[in-house]
């Protein structure tokens, strides 16, 4: 039996169409430096990149010159939070609001700004893993400069009400940044309709290449931010460095496919989740960490009281999944997201994240749930609990 990949929230394989487009580029004459537009090779690369920029921008209803290429969503988050706050903070507006459920690439830059003298307020998510709008509204004040929340939570799949948060921010004259690393291409998002000022984008979670991402910066409401890197004038001097033509084309290609397949993907992921959960009915001691209408169906985070996720994963053998978030799973620190959701340590230790994708079959979901069920039962037997 081949290993079954159920770690799509961590990263996805490249879509065939993306591979094909990237492969053509790797062997043709578009290897030129896109900044070297004095010759044909550079011009060709430049044009490809600008077409890709248009494609990515239109996907979120932005303008092409509102898209800044980055190495991924982590860099985009850093650039958005550090760049905006350092450029726009004033004596009267110097508070940042975010949440304990955010990715480390949001929380750490926020903490860096706190060290630099800004005020930081991290909100706790509700039991479902999302931000309570009323709590959020109470937390903002005249001193709030920036609010940063993710669209879909990478660990539990909870979805934040980005539109309502955006409206509140716009009304209160607060900049709003969205980390859409996990949400882009999975749920529709319109930056203008949601009043988003900055949004971080990735490619590798929607069947595009790793090492490429982008930051949307609203031209009107934000305009300028401060770069965090120096040494080149690329991307309006906001993000210096030679652009990665092939990856950028791959990202645009992945977005184009996502546009066509988003609704079908969503239905398919819902079906995978249903098959998996139906098969887990009656399994004692399990708890689904986010399971409401506001949960993205592709991410299924399940905890078992008292067990250790590492052993569950080891016991399942052929199922590739994560415990907590993949980025921090090499250390033994419990997931900061699950902790913030108020989960007992017993459940956190035993939490496994299954994440389904376009290539997951219903048979895969069924088989994985059977292995999961067997592993939980076996490990309970080992610890003397029937």
């Amino acid at each position, binding site marked *: 039996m081949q290993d079954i990949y159920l770690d799509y929230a961590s990263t996805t394989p490249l879509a065939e169409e993306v591979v094909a487009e990237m492969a053509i580029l790797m062997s043709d004459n578009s290897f030129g430096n896109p900044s070297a537009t004095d010759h044909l090779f550079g011009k060709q690369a430049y044009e490809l990149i600008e077409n890709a920029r248009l494609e990515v921008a239109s996907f979120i209803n932005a303008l092409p010159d509102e898209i800044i290429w980055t190495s991924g969503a982590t860099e985009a988050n850093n650039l958005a939070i550090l760049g905006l706050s350092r450029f726009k903070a004033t004596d009267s507006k110097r508070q940042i609001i975010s949440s304990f459920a955010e990715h480390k690439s949001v929380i750490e830059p926020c903490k860096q700004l706190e060290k630099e003298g800004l005020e930081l307020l991290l909100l706790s998510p509700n039991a479902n893993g999302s931000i309570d709008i009323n709590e959020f509204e109470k937390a903002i004040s005249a001193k709030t400069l920036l609010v940063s929340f993710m669209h879909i939570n990478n660990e539990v799949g909870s979805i934040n009400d980005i539109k309502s948060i955006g409206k509140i921010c716009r009304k209160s004259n607060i900049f709003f940044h969205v980390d859409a690393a996990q949400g882009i291409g999975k749920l529709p998002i319109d930056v203008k309709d949601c009043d988003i000022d900055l949004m971080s984008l990735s490619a590798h979670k929607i069947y595009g290449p790793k090492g490429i991402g982008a930051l949307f910066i609203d031209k009107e409401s934000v305009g300028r931010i401060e770069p965090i890197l120096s040494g080149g004038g690329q991307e309006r001097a906001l993000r210096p460095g030679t652009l990665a033509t092939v990856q950028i084309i791959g990202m645009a290609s992945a977005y184009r496919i996502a546009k066509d397949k988003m609704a079908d993907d969503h239905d398919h992921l819902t079906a995978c989740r249903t098959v998996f959960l139906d098969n887990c009915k009656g399994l004692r001691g399990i708890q689904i960490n986010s399971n409401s209408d506001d949960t993205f169906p592709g991410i299924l985070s399940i905890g078992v009281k008292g067990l250790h996720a*590492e052993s569950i994963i080891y016991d399942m053998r052929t199922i590739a999944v994560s415990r907590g978030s993949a980025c921090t799973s090499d250390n033994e620190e419990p997931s900061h997201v699950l902790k913030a959701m108020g989960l007992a340590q017993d459940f956190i230790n035993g939490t496994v994240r299954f994440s389904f994708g376009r290539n997951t079959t219903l048979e895969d979901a069924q088989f994985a749930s059977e292995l999961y069920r067997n592993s939980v039962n076996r490990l309970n*037997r*080992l*610890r003397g609990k*029937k």
Partner: protein
Amino acid sequence: MTQDSTRHYFDKEEHVFDACGDQQCNYILGTASNPLGMQINLYFKVEEGTITDAKYNVNGCPTLVAITAYYVEKVIGRNLEDCTDFKAFAIREIIDLPKNRMDRILLLENAVNACIDQKETEVK
């Protein structure tokens, strides 16, 4: 090789203590746990100073499960006083034990010592 052994002993269930079936037998129990929520329950049956049977319940990482299963298999037939001589068990040569998991042996050692303490209490 050690990774294969880890898998082998992780998968073994031969000496797992079954609360229903094994409760009638006269085992001494030693328990140890750590702040990560890992726990070992060791059950020794001791006759005239010799461990004639041993069982366990364990909850923790795969390394802990494997070293417990391995240790229990090897401790049967030994004298109780020899069962803390961990070097003789050569656990590190058999089970894949990363540096950051050396504390799992200490946890096992604590459970073994708890068994010995229990036996001494019984004797007194």
